[in-house]
């Protein structure tokens, strides 16, 4: 007698392994309606990854209207077959290991399934031989059993380790691919595909694949192998009994298909339902201040109750569907067992079948039907992983609209001892991929060392201009040249030595303040960092933090205001020491003294450098050599500040209004 056939997956679940489908160790029993047999996967963490994997998207009116835009959907369109191709490419790189792991499993199953054969042998041969004082067969049984037990254990060990290697390598590979791809995708992609979705692609979706790999696939292979082995054994023991057992697969297969079909629909609903719950929950907690200030608590309770209740219903439906499947498959299996025993018993009574063969067959039969429940469970985790993989494939199918340079060229040596470089927009125009021209064709030259202020109302195209220069976008037509070199021909390090942009949103990465500044130049010394911070007027507030430059910005006491974040962002840019510096609304959250300090610093910092400064506040203009006024994507005024202020154009008007606002 042996252990159960398919105990190949993870073991007793630890804290984070709670869904462990393989956590059902020896399912070799008719009575095993154990935790491993279904509900858990149907309802629990096994598919919860799938639940979470369908995150922040619940169909709303907008989607109905803008259904054309793939970015409004959670899943990006993937070319047909991309999911399969992705899975294949992940696995094929480690084909050798997969084969080895499969081999271990094959051997393990062989060792495990030999048990009942030995029982038959012991009863039919061992007993008569022993009665005849021949210990040989019995010793053979003992040794054989020992070998099988040891083999099952050793191969089990080997298989778990080998498959863990494969799984972890696949996950490492996939995580890396998503990460690198997300980083390679251009800013316009990130502007349209919300960060929440991207994050859930690389977390919950990967997690559901992990569940499938760690448990599901082993489960499936184990189940299939067990079916094949046991059927083969039964056929070997007795053709008739084996044939009957194989025949019983037909209704079982039908049941599995039926379940797959029905559960798929219910799971889809359930994961949409939990996603809605999660969105509401997260949104409320993230916006708790306005929730309280505007007395939304009761209205929210009611909304949440509706969503929560809907999830409760679908959740119950899913559990019941699993219950139906379990009853159906158990019923089929038990009827088959009774039938086979009946027939076998008659044949033993007739003398056409050995008693030991019947005994072994019965033992085999009991475990033949054990994996059925787990098959249902596998289907669950497969469905959730397939959905996740499809979403990941959709993401990976996006091509970066700002590709890396194919054959990078260096920038020419700086001449004249000044850090600035000349910028030329040559017949440049820009439209979004979805259509809608933002910048009609234009030419613009910014001589090296010039500080240019760009002003104009919201939507005039100022930021687009800046993003073209920073190569966040590529122009639809024309070229952007830095000292005569097309930006598209520069590799990333070279490009960033050339152009750096400071934006309005001053994001801080976790880590210390010093590390955040050092993003501008990772090899900078502490002195360099402090110099940069002093130059921009950030040193004072940083010194007042609990641990100064070593304060972790995410820890307690690290409360850093929006204005202070912008100062850190400036220090970063200062440290990067680029030829061309772009400031896009980089001072919007600063108070006036802060802004002044920055401007004073800029006087020095920008000297000799080419700079493009975008600001709502016209104070910035005072440090500019030249002002561009933009409207509807066109430069409508271009001149020195004094010229323009003295004139009668738009800028003069704007400037007057601004002056008045300062009064």
């Amino acid at each position: 007698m042996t252990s159960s056939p398919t105990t190949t997956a993870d073991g007793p679940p630890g804290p984070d392994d709670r869904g462990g489908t393989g956590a059902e160790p020896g399912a070799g029993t008719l009575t095993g309606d154990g935790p491993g047999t279904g509900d858990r996967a149907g309802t629990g963490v096994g598919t919860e990854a799938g639940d979470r994997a369908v995150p922040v998207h619940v169909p709303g009116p907008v989607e109905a209207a803008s259904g054309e835009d793939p970015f409004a959907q959670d899943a990006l369109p993937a070319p047909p077959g991309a999911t399969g191709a992705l899975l294949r490419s992940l696995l094929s790189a480690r084909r050798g290991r997969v084969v080895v792991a499969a081999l271990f499993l094959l051997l393990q199953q062989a060792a495990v399934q030999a048990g009942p054969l030995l029982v038959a042998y012991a009863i039919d041969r061992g007993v008569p031989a022993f009665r005849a004082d021949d210990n040989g067969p019995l010793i053979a049984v003992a040794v054989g059993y020992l070998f099988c037990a040891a083999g099952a254990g050793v191969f089990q060990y080997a298989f778990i380790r080998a498959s863990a290697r494969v799984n972890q390598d696949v996950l490492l590979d996939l995580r890396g691919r998503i990460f690198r791809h997300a980083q390679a995708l251009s800013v316009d992609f990130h502007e349209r595909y919300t960060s929440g979705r991207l994050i859930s692609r690389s977390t919950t979706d990967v997690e559901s694949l992990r569940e499938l790999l760690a448990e599901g696939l082993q489960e499936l292979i184990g189940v299939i192998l067990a079916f094949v082995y046991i059927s083969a054994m039964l056929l070997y023991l007795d053709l008739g009994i084996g044939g009957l057992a194989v025949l019983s697969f037909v209704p079982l297969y039908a049941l599995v298909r039926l379940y797959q079909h029905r559960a798929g629909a219910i799971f889809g609903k359930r994961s949409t339902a939990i996603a809605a719950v999660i969105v509401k929950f997260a949104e409320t907690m993230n916006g708790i201040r306005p929730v309280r200030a505007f007395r939304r608590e009761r209205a929210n309770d009611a909304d949440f109750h509706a969503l929560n209740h809907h999830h409760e219903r679908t959740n119950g439906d899913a559990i019941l569907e699993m219950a139906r499947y379990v009853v159906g498959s158990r019923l089929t299996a038990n009827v088959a067992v009774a039938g086979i025993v009946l027939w076998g018993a008659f044949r033993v009574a007739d003398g056409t079948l050995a008693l030991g063969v019947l005994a072994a067959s019965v033992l085999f039969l009991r475990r033949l039907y054990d994996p059925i429940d787990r098959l249902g469970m596998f289907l669950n985790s497969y469905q959730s992983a397939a959905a996740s993989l499809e979403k990941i494939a959709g993401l990976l199918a996006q091509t970066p609209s700002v590709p890396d340079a194919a054959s990078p060229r260096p920038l020419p040596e700086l001449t004249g001892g000044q850090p600035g470089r000349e910028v030329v927009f040559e017949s440049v125009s820009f439209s979004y991929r979805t259509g809608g021209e933002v910048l009609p064709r234009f030419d613009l030259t910014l001589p090296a060392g010039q500080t240019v202020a760009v002003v104009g109302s919201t939507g005039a195209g100022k930021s687009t201009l800046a993003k073209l220069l920073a190569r966040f976008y590529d122009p639809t037509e024309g070229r952007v040249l830095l000292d005569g070199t097309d930006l598209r021909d520069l590799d990333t390090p070279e490009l960033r030595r050339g152009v750096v942009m400071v934006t309005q949103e001053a994001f801080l990465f976790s880590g210390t303040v010093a590390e955040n500044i050092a993003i501008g130049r990772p090899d900078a010394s502490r002195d360099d960092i402090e110099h940069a911070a002093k130059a921009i007027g950030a040193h004072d507030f940083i010194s007042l933090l609990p641990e100064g430059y070593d304060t972790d910005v995410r820890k307690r006491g690290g409360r850093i205001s929006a204005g202070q974040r912008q100062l850190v962002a400036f220090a970063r840019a200062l440290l990067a020491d680029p030829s061309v510096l772009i400031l896009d609304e980089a001072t919007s959250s600063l108070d006036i003294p802060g802004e002044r300090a920055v401007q004073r610093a800029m006087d020095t910092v920008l000297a000799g450098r080419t700079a493009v400064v975008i600001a709502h506040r016209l104070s910035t203009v005072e440090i500019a050599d030249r002002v561009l006024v933009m409207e509807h994507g066109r430069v409508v005024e271009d001149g020195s500040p004094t010229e323009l202020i003295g004139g009668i154009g738009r800028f003069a008007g704007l400037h007057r209004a601004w002056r008045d606002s300062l009064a």
Partner: protein
Amino acid sequence: MPTSEDVPAKDSSAVRERSVVRSLLRLWPYVRPVRVRLFSAAFVAVLASCLGLVIPLVLKWMVDGPIADGDKGGIWLGALYLLLLGILEACLFGFRRWLVARPLAGVEAAMRADLYRHLQRLPIAFHDRWPSGQLLSRGTTDLMLLRMFLAFPLTFLLVNGTTILVGFLILLMQEWTLGLVLLAPVVPLVVLCSVFEAKYSLVARKAQDQVGDLTTVVEESVLGVRIVKGFGRHRSQALAFRALAERLRGTELGKARLLAGIWALIMVIPEVAIGAALVLGTIQVADGDLSTGTLVAFLSTALALRWPVESIGFLLAMSQESATATERYFEVMDAQEETADAADTAGPAAVGDAESDGLRFEGVSFRYPDAEAGSVPVLTGVDLHIRSGETMALVGATGSGKTTLTALVPRLHEVTGGRITLDGEDITLMPRQRLRELVSVAFEEPTLFSATVGENVRMGAESADDAALSRALDVAQADFVHDLPQGVHTEVGEQGLSLSGGQRQRLALARAVVGGPRFLVLDDPLSALDVHTEALVEAALRRVLEETTALVVAHRPSTVMLADRVALISDGRITAVGTHHELLRDNAEYAWLMSGADAEGEAEAAGDAGAEAVEGSMR
């Protein structure tokens, strides 16, 4: 990111077991309503389980009786028994699941609803301390785990315990020597499982934390993608990511090694025992001490018992986890909600024409609840009176406590000293509901919810009609709304159209003014607007401010100009109050804040120092 998961207490296991039970008992109030069904289900499961143990006995009876005798009727009867038992067993399985399916989904939902309800009413300070992800994981993963716990481990600890007991009784009754052989591995298995559990939970915990770290890098690289790109730091980000991912892989492989080891042992030990029983049994059969049927039945029963025995270890582990989940859940549920509204909300206790006293701060001091004991409070004795109908601008350097002060008015934080009165009435004596109806706020960080533009704005005043809505949008110069795909019915927020900072700020402003509130608190409401729009909003806002008592945090002269008077806040107290021009003339700090150009000598010096530093920092 701090992995603020609670580190499991490393008590002795005895203490832990007890506390596991105690933690789990806290679930009782939620389980109580479904107790009948839950207990019935457990009973049904025990029944089904014992039924499974009867089947081998039927087999034995068949082998030793009808089959050996060639009694056809007996065989038919035996098969019929098997069939009936099988059908009964299948039905009981289904029945058990059916019994608990809806009720347990209900328990999960009820706990989640309670959590949500409770969280909405916890002090803001609580939310400042707890990342929303931590709260969310309690509301989802932990609750799912608890539902599973109620559905399985709880039932099956009972069921498997009974099964093992009954099973071994049957085994011992059939042949006690063989029974003892099978019983032998139980002790080492249980010991091994508990040793393993201890080791494994440490590694698993480590893996969880590392997943958290990895997630942080992913999150940040997405949120900060413009910076990563702007400085060309993909490569270093990718390296950092790879290092963490590989560390995680290492931990996961360590986990797999542990698992592989325990599994190998779990496979081998009982197997050896069963093998020994087989050999001994065969000898006994050969000697005629044992019938073949008994041996078959015996081995069948042993097989049936394998799973219950092995499962005990991980059922306990799951209980342990569920206890942790329960603790995590109640950790939040035990936090105090905002103190109940004062019962006595009788009329204003103030005197005279308190009716139109306006907004008054009297000796208000405040310290964040999580601040270190010795630290300086954010606000120390703020005295300020905003007369009814007046607009007061609040000006102060970065970090002077402006935003904190505004949060005190709608009682998002509670003052730690002094009091704030609205028309003479102490806000701590007012029901929050009414206070927040009276006071309308626009935050520095404009948050929109997943709802239509109209709904978002109407959050300021449920009853606002379409005219009020369009008036509010006009005030905020939010005419861009009409260009949205469905106008005011366009969905915005996380699940809808994403709007620019300036657009969100204007909607937040509209939300604050839509109800024509008596008191208005605006925190730098125009910072993201361009000069042109700002001027338009100011003009419109002026009309609104005429009719209300307002406190406006301002960074710029243009915003200050909206106000009748200005209060200067410095080092946690109000140091000057007056009109813009008075302060500009008389107060050096104010002049410096508003123009950045005063305190000449000092500024110059600072500028020079700055300039030097700049040169130094450039290579």
